[in-house]
């Protein structure tokens, strides 16, 4: 049995769906955040697999940019979550529902 790039893309799709489910089901900001990271890594896998299949380097190049942007967002996100946590001692999104309407 050979493992073709198609398999990796299927795996990436599965990872993406797991991440998306995590966002919908979990209510802890940190866990939601981890789910998003899972989705971003699914994207990376797709880019690499696609680049490999076509035989172009751009797929791998895109991954570098995605990783750096994701890292920048991790930093911003953690800063926000820490700020929220210091104030509320909770990271649950449901408990942060002061505004409605």
């Amino acid at each position: 049995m050979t493992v073709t790039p198609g398999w990796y893309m299927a795996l990436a799709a599965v990872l993406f769906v797991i991440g998306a489910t995590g966002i919908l089901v979990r209510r802890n900001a940190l866990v939601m955040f981890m789910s998003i990271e899972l989705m971003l890594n699914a994207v990376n896998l797709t880019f690499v697999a696609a680049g490999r299949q076509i035989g172009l380097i751009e797929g791998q190049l895109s991954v570098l940019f995605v990783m750096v942007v994701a890292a920048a967002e991790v930093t911003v996100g953690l800063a926000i979550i820490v700020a929220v946590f210091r104030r509320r001692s909770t990271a649950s999104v449901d408990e942060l529902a002061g505004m409605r309407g």
Partner: protein
Amino acid sequence: MTLADYLPIALMLILGVGFAAVMMLASWRLGPNRPTPEKLAPYECGIVPLQEPVERFPVKFYIVAMLFVIFDVELIFLFAWAVRFDQFGWAGIGAMAIFVALLIETLVYVWKRGALDWNVASRERYRRVVAPDAEVAPREAA
């Protein structure tokens, strides 16, 4: 790539897991184990804790961790450039010099703002610059 090519990886995994399992098993079976109530208490002397302590790390740990993540990942671009730097010539070196200069500027900024200082709360500069209002009640929402 066929499945057979994954054999070394599989062997490596089995070896790694097996080694750890053997070590743990050996220490469990061979080591002397004569427990007494005193030995099982969390502290040999003092009061038995009633609840788990709330784990609150000082924020400075987060700041350093965040800064590490960001500077660490930014270096990816150096790798992409380094594998072909001879082909990019001076233009490539110039571009990378600008990139690194930007990173250095951020580092200097972070440093000057005191974010890298471990013992930050004791410094007057912290109170004045980084958190002039650290313990003040929040203003009423407009």
